[in-house]
C-alpha cells in the first residue's frame, strides 16, 4: 500500500478525465518508464458536507469493497480491469486502463448522452452501427457477451449494484490481442463502486432488473436486445436460472407498483 502523500502526489501529475458524483477519474502512469501502460485512477475525494469521521470510514469501506469485488471477479475469470494500486485511507484505487468504448455509445440511442450534440436520432443510430463494425461484432453477439459476463459474475456471488450499458466496455481490437478464434474484442465490466457480495436470488434478480431499466431508458425499443442478454445469461447459469427468473418477474411488478407513502 502506498503512503498517503505518494498517492496524492501521483494524482497531481495525472490528467483529470471526468468527475462523477462520487469520484474524480484520472489517467496516470505508475512509473516513468515509457513501456509502462497507463492506469485509471479513481479518487474518492473528501466530501466537505459529510462529518470527517463518517466521510473517512465510508471512503475507506467503499474503496476496499470495490477492490475486493474486483479481486473476486478476477479469480472467477470475469473480465474486469486488474487492480494496480489500493490506498483505502486516501480513497485512491488504480486499475488497468482499458482502451475501447462503453457499450452505451455503441448501441442506438446511447450516443446522444451528452447534451446539445445537435444530431438527430437517425444519424446517431448510423454512428452506432459504424462503431460496432469497427469492433467486428454484431449486436446479437454483443448481447450474448453481456449475458455471459453477468452470469459469470453472479456465479461468483458478486452483485454489481449498478449495471448499465455505461458500465460495460468493449476492448478496441487495435490494442487487444484476442485468444478467441472469431472474436477480436472482449467485454469488460467496470465500476464496481456499488457492488457487494451476496448469494441471494433476490439480489441477483434486482441486479438484472436494474440493467433492464437502464436498457429501456437509454436505448429505445431495446426489449429484444435485453431478451437476448437474458437468454445468454440463462444458458450460462444453468439450473440456478429457474429461481432467479421467477424472482425477476416478481421484482418487475414491485418496481411498478411501489407506493410513495412512508
Amino acid at each position: 500500500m502506498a503512503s498517503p502523500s505518494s498517492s496524492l502526489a501521483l494524482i497531481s501529475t495525472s490528467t483529470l478525465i471526468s468527475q462523477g458524483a462520487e469520484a474524480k477519474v484520472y489517467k496516470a502512469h505508475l512509473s516513468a518508464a515509457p513501456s509502462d501502460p497507463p492506469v485509471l485512477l479513481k479518487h474518492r475525494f473528501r466530501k466537505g458536507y459529510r462529518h470527517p469521521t463518517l466521510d473517512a470510514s465510508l471512503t475507506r469501506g467503499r474503496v476496499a469493497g470495490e477492490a475486493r469485488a474486483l479481486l473476486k471477479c478476477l479469480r472467477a475469470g470475469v473480465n474486469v480491469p486488474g487492480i494496480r494500486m489500493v490506498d483505502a485511507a486516501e480513497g485512491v484505487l488504480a486499475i488497468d486502463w482499458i482502451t475501447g468504448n462503453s457499450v452505451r455509445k455503441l448501441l442506438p440511442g446511447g450516443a446522444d448522452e451528452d447534451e446539445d450534440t445537435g444530431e438527430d436520432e437517425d444519424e446517431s443510430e448510423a454512428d452506432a452501427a459504424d462503431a460496432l463494425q469497427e469492433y467486428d461484432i454484431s449486436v446479437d453477439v454483443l448481447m450474448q457477451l453481456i449475458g455471459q459476463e453477468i452470469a459469470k459474475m453472479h456465479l461468483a456471488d458478486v452483485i454489481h449494484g449498478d449495471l448499465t450499458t455505461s458500465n460495460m466496455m468493449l476492448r478496441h481490437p487495435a490494442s487487444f490481442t484476442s485468444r478467441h478464434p472469431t472474436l477480436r474484442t472482449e467485454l469488460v465490466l467496470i465500476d464496481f463502486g456499488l457492488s457487494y457480495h451476496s448469494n441471494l436470488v433476490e439480489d441477483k434478480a434486482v441486479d438484472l432488473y436494474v440493467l433492464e431499466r437502464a436498457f429501456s431508458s437509454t436505448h429505445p425499443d431495446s426489449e429484444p436486445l435485453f431478451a437476448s442478454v437474458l437468454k445468454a445469461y440463462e444458458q450460462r447459469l444453468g439450473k440456478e436460472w429457474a429461481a432467479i427468473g421467477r424472482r425477476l418477474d416478481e421484482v418487475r411488478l414491485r418496481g411498478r407498483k411501489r407506493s410513495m407513502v412512508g
Partner: protein
Amino acid sequence: MPGRVRKDPLRKPDRPYLALGLEGSANKFGAGVIKHFEDGSTAVLSNIRHTYITPPGEGFQPRDTALHHREWALKVINDCLTKADVSMHDLDCICYTKGPGMGAPLQSVALVARTLSLLFNKPLVGVNHCVGHIEMGREITGAQNPVVLYVSGGNTQVIAYSRQCYRIFGETLDIAIGNCLDRFARVINLSNDPAPGYNIEQEAKKGKRLLALPYTTKGMDVSFSGILTSVEAYTFDKRFRANGQPQNSNDEDIITPADLCFSLQETIYAMLVEITERAMAHIGSKEVLIVGGVGSNERLQEMMGIMAQERGGKVFATDERFCIDNGIMIAQAGLLSFRMGFETPLSESTCTQRFRTDEVHVAWRA
C-alpha cells in the same frame, strides 16, 4: 431530445386569475389565495395554516387529525379570505389536495372543497401534494430546472423534470425521513411543538459525539428504518444518560440524547445529499431545490450548500412558510393546471393515499 427547445405551453393570462388552495394531507390544515397577473407574475395574497400538535411521545392519529381539520377548516379559510381581501365569488377555482397523504384528513379537506365548490359554483382542481411543493418552490426561488429533493414526514424523493413529468430518480425504500425523525423524537420524549424535527435540530447543536449508525444508500435510493432501530438501540446502551448529565465526575464515556440527535442528523442528511449529488451528476444539472417540511432544517440546507459549491452549483430553499405543508402551494399548482384547461368534475373529486409524483401530467411546462 437534447438541444431542442420546446415552446412554453403556458400562455400569459388574459386577465388576473385567483385560486384558493386547501391542504390537509397530514397534521396541518392550510388555506391560501394566489393571484396570477396578466404579465405572468404571481402574488401570494394570503397563506394561513393551523397545526395539530400532540403531546410529547405521541404521534398524530388519522381520526384525531381529521377531527382537527374539520374543526379548524372554516376559521382558517375565513381568515385566509379576509387577509387576502377577496370574496369567494371572486375566485376562479378551488384547489384541494387529492393525495398522497393520510386518508381521513384528506377526506375531510376534500369534503370542504366540494361543499364550497357547490355553494359558490366554482370549478374544483385536485392537486398532487408533491407537485404542489415543487411548483411553489420553483415560484418562490425562481429555480428554472432544478433537481428537487422532496423531504417531509411522509415523503423522501429525488425528482427531476423530464418530458412533462416529474420523474422520481431516487426515493426511500421504507419510511420517510420525517417519519424517522418524528419517531425518534418520541423515543427521547422531545416536544412536538412547533415540530419534532425542529427540536431535534436544536438538540443536535449541543451534541458532540458521532456514534456509528448504518449508512444505507442504495444507488439513488435510501432506507431509514434500520437507522431508526439502531439509534433507538443506543437509548438502551448502558452508557446512555437520558438527562444528558454525567452521574459523577468519573462518568466520562457517556451518550446523551443530544449526541444521538447529532449523529442521526449527520448520517441521514449526508445520505440525502449524496443521492441528490448522484442525481445531479446523472442528469448534468447544477441547481438543487429543497422542498418539504424537513427542507426547513438549516443543517440540511448547509450540507447541501457545501455539496453544490463543490460542484459549482446552487441551492434553492424556502423558509418554513412555504417548506412546511401549506395551502398556497396547492393553489399555485392547481391554478397552473386550471389555466391549461384542467378541472376535476365533482363526480371525480376523490382523494387517494397513494398518488405518485410521476403520475401527474405536467401540462404547463415545456
